[in-house]
C-alpha cells in the first residue's frame, strides 16, 4: 500500500536527507495498518454480540458474559500455548492431552484410594506444583525429541498426544477423579469481584504474552526462528535453547489450563481436553497466526478464541440443538478462513 514511497529513489546521495523523513510518514501509516490487522476480528465480535443481544437478551447479562469468559479462559491458555509454538515454527498437538493428564496425574496421587483410583500418597497442597511439574516434564520430553534428536515435531507430538491420553485413561481406569483437594479447586472455583480467578489468570497471561512477544528480545526471537531459523542462528540467537523453552512453557500453560477446568468442574475426566486441539488450531489461525511460523500475534489469537466462543454461545442461546453445534462450528472456522484469505489477499498454503 505504501510501497511506492520506498521505491522512488534509486539511492543517490541527493536524497540523503529525505531518506529518514519519507519513511517516517509511511511508517506511521503502516503501523496503523498493522494495528488494524490485529484488530480485524474486533468488529466481527461486536457484530456477533449485537446479534446475540437481539437473539436473546440474556446474552448481555453479566452472568452469561462471565460464563463465556470462564469457559474460554481454560481453552484460551491452550491457544496461547499453541500460538507461541506456532510462531516459533513448530506445532504441538500433545497440548490437549497435557491439558487432561497434568491435573489427572496430580489427582491420582492425591485422591484417597476409597473414592476413585487414587493413591492418596501425596498431601493435598502438592496438587498445583505437581500439575505444573507434569507439564514441564512433558515439554522437556517434546524438546528432547524435537530439538535434541531432530525428530519431526508434528509426528512427535501426535505420538505424545496418544501416549499421554492413554496414560490418563490407564491411571484413571477410564473413570473420572472426584474429591479434588481445595488447592486444585481454587483457580477454577474462587470468585473475585464476581469474576472467577481463572478469567483473571487467563487475561494476565495473555497480557504477559503480548508484552513478551512484542517487546522483548526473547519474544522477537520466536518470530525470527519461525521465519528463518538459519538467519536467526546467524544473528546470534540460540535457537535450540529458545525452542526448548517454548515447548516447556507451552506444556506448562496447557497444564495450568487443565487445572482451571478441573477446578471449575471439581473433577478430572479421563477425556478432559479430548479433541480440543482442533478448536485451538482454528482459533489461532482465525486470529492470524500462520501455521508456517513466524507470523501472528498473541492478541490476534486471543480475538480468535473469543470470537469462536461468542459465536458458540449465541448459537446455544438461539436454541440451536447441541448436536448441531459441532457442524456449525466447523462451518464458522471455514468461513473465517475464507474471509481472512479475502481480506489479507495472501495465500495461506
Amino acid at each position, binding site marked *: 500500500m505504501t510501497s511506492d514511497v*520506498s521505491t*522512488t529513489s534509486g539511492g543517490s546521495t541527493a536524497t*540523503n536527507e529525505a531518506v529518514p523523513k519519507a519513511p517516517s510518514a*509511511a511508517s506511521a501509516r503502516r503501523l496503523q495498518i498493522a494495528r488494524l490487522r490485529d484488530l480485524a476480528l474486533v468488529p466481527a465480535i461486536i457484530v456477533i454480540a449485537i446479534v446475540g443481544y437481539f437473539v436473546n437478551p440474556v446474552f448481555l447479562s453479566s452472568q452469561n458474559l462471565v460464563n463465556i469468559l470462564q469457559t474460554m479462559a481454560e481453552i484460551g491458555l491452550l491457544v496461547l500455548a499453541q500460538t507461541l509454538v506456532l510462531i516459533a515454527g513448530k506445532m504441538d498437538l500433545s497440548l490437549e492431552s497435557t491439558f487432561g493428564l497434568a491435573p489427572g496425574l496430580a489427582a491420582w496421587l492425591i485422591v484417597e484410594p476409597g473414592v476413585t483410583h487414587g493413591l492418596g500418597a501425596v498431601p493435598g497442597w502438592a496438587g498445583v506444583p505437581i500439575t505444573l511439574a507434569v507439564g514441564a516434564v512433558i515439554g522437556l520430553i517434546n524438546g528432547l525429541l524435537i530439538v535434541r534428536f531432530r525428530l519431526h515435531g508434528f509426528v512427535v507430538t501426535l505420538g505424545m498426544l496418544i501416549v499421554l491420553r492413554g496414560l490418563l485413561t490407564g491411571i484413571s481406569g477410564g473413570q473420572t477423579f472426584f474429591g479434588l483437594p481445595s488447592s486444585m479447586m481454587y483457580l477454577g472455583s474462587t470468585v473475585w469481584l464476581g469474576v472467577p480467578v481463572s478469567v483473571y489468570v487467563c487475561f494476565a497471561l495473555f497480557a504477559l504474552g503480548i508484552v513478551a512477544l512484542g*517487546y522483548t*528480545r526473547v519474544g*522477537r526471537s520466536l518470530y525470527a526462528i519461525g*521465519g528463518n531459523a538459519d538467519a536467526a542462528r546467524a544473528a*546470534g540467537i540460540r535457537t535450540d535453547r529458545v525452542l526448548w523453552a517454548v515447548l516447556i512453557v507451552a506444556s506448562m500453560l496447557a497444564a495450568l489450563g487443565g487445572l482451571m477446568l478441573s477446578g471449575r468442574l471439581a473433577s478430572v475426566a479421563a477425556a478432559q481436553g479430548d479433541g480440543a486441539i482442533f478448536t485451538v488450531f482454528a482459533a489461532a489461525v482465525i486470529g492470524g497466526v500462520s501455521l508456517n511460523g513466524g507470523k501472528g500475534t498473541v492478541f490476534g489469537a486471543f480475538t480468535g478464541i473469543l470470537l469462536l466462543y461468542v459465536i458458540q454461545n449465541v448459537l446455544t442461546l438461539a436454541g440451536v440443538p447441541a448436536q448441531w453445534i459441532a457442524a456449525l462450528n466447523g462451518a464458522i472456522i471455514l468461513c473465517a478462513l475464507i474471509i481472512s484469505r479475502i481480506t489479507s489477499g495472501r495465500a495461506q498454503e
Partner: protein
Amino acid sequence: MSPEPLVEAVHVTKRYGTTVALRDAGILVRPGATHALVGRNGAGKSTLVSILTGLQAPDEGTVSFEGEPAPPLGDRDAWRRRVACVYQKSTIIPELTVAENLFLNRHPGAPLIKWSALRRDAAELLATWDVAVDVTRPAGELSVEQRQLVEIARALSYDARLIILDEPTAQLDGPAINRLFDRMRGLQERGVTFLFISHHLEEIYRVCDEVTVFRDAQHIVTGSVAELPPADLVSAMTGDATALTRRAARPPLPAGTPAVLEVQDLDGVSFQVRAGEVVGLAGSGGSGKKEIAEAVAGLRRPRAGSIRVGGTPLKPGSVPASLAAGVGLVPQDRHHEGFVPDLSIAENLTMTVPRRLGRFGTISRKRRDRLAHTLIDELAVKTPGPDLPVSALSGGNQQKVVMGRALANDPKLLVLIQPTAGVDVRSKETLLGVVDKVRENGTGVLVASDELDDLRTCDRVVVLFQGRQVAEFGSDWSDHDLVAAMEGLNSDDE
C-alpha cells in the same frame, strides 16, 4: 608498502569424510582492493567462505585478520565484527520489518524493546550507507537488489569492513548489476573491502582489482586483474585452454523453411522462429522477455495477441497444450520451476513425458531408465546413475537435467529462459552446445536472456525494452550495440 592484509588464510586444508574440499589452499585480501574469487563448481569456494566467516574450522592451516589470529568459532560477535557474507540464499526474515532485521537480537532497549528507537536507528543506518529502503516494510517484500543492500548495511553496522559477496549478480538484471557495482566502488572509497565471488568473468574485469583462482580444492593463481587476460583466467579455472569460443557462422537457412513459432502482436511484440533457427529474446529484467517466453510455454496467459506453434494456434495459458504442441521449456528459476529436488534424475528427466513411459497411466521403470540414460549421455550429466536425487548434483548439472526434461519431449520448439544463470564455465559450454545440436535436428530455439554468452549462439536477436520491441540484430552484432539496445540507449533503431 603494502599494509597488513585484511584477511589471510594460509595452508588451509579441509576434509569432509573422504572428500578433500580444500587442499593446502590460501588467500590474501588486502584492504581496499576488491578481490575476486573464481573457480568452477566444486573448486572449494564455498568451503573457503565458510572458513573465512568462522562457520567452520579448517582441519589444518590458519586464518588471520589484520595480522591477528582468528577468534574462536564460538565467538560469533567477534567474527561478525571482522567479516560478513551476503549469500545467494537470503539471510533475512521475511515476516519481520527491515528495521527489525537490521537489529535482530540486539534491539535497543532492555528489558522492553523501544520500537521507535529501533526504527530511527535503522533509518539512520540505511541513510548512512545511502540505502533508500523504507525500514517499516516487511523484509519479504524487498527485491533481491534491495535485500542485498540491506544485508550489506547490516554487515557494516557490525563494523565489519570485509564483505564477501557470494554470486551477488546471479539473480540481478543488467541495470541492477550496474548499480551494485557503482555501490561497491562507492563503499570501497569509504574503506570497505569486498571479496567477490562470481561465475561471470566480465564482471570481475569491471569491478575487481585482484583475482584468486581455485581449482579442484587448490589455490591456482592470484594476481592483479590487469595482468590476467580472460583467456588465462579461463584456463586457470578449467585447467586446459578451453575458452568461450565464438561459434562459427552458420549457413543461412534455406528460403521457405517453415516457421515453428509465430508470435503475433503478443502484448505488442511480433516475431518468428523458423525450424532450425535460434532466436534470442534479449532485454534486461522488466523488459518483458520472460513474460513472452512464459506465454509461449503456457505458464502465463497473455493480455493480447496470438501464438502459433507449427502453424496451429496455441491455447493460451495452458502448459499441457504447449507441451502437446511440442514446446519444451527451461524455466528461469530452476529451483522453483525446474525440478523436484528429492526425486531422482530419471524421474525429473521424464516428468514431461509420462505417455512415453507406459500405457494407461502406468510407468515402466525400464523404459524410464532407458530414456534417462540417453538424455544423461547426451547432456553429459555428471552422475553415478539415474537414481541419484537431483538435489545431490551441482548447479550446472542440475541445469542440464532441466534442459534434459525439456528435450525429453522431442520438442519442435525449445524455449530457454536465462539458461546459464549460476552455472560454471564448463557446464555453460555443454548447455550451449546442446542448443547447437538441437537446432541441427530442425528444432527452433527461443533464448530469452540478457547474458551475452547465451545470445552468441543465436542467428537473430530481438531486443525488448520495457515491453517494447526496440531492435533486431543478425548474428553479427557487437557487444556494445546489443547492451546499449537492452539498456534502452539505442534510439536510431526506432
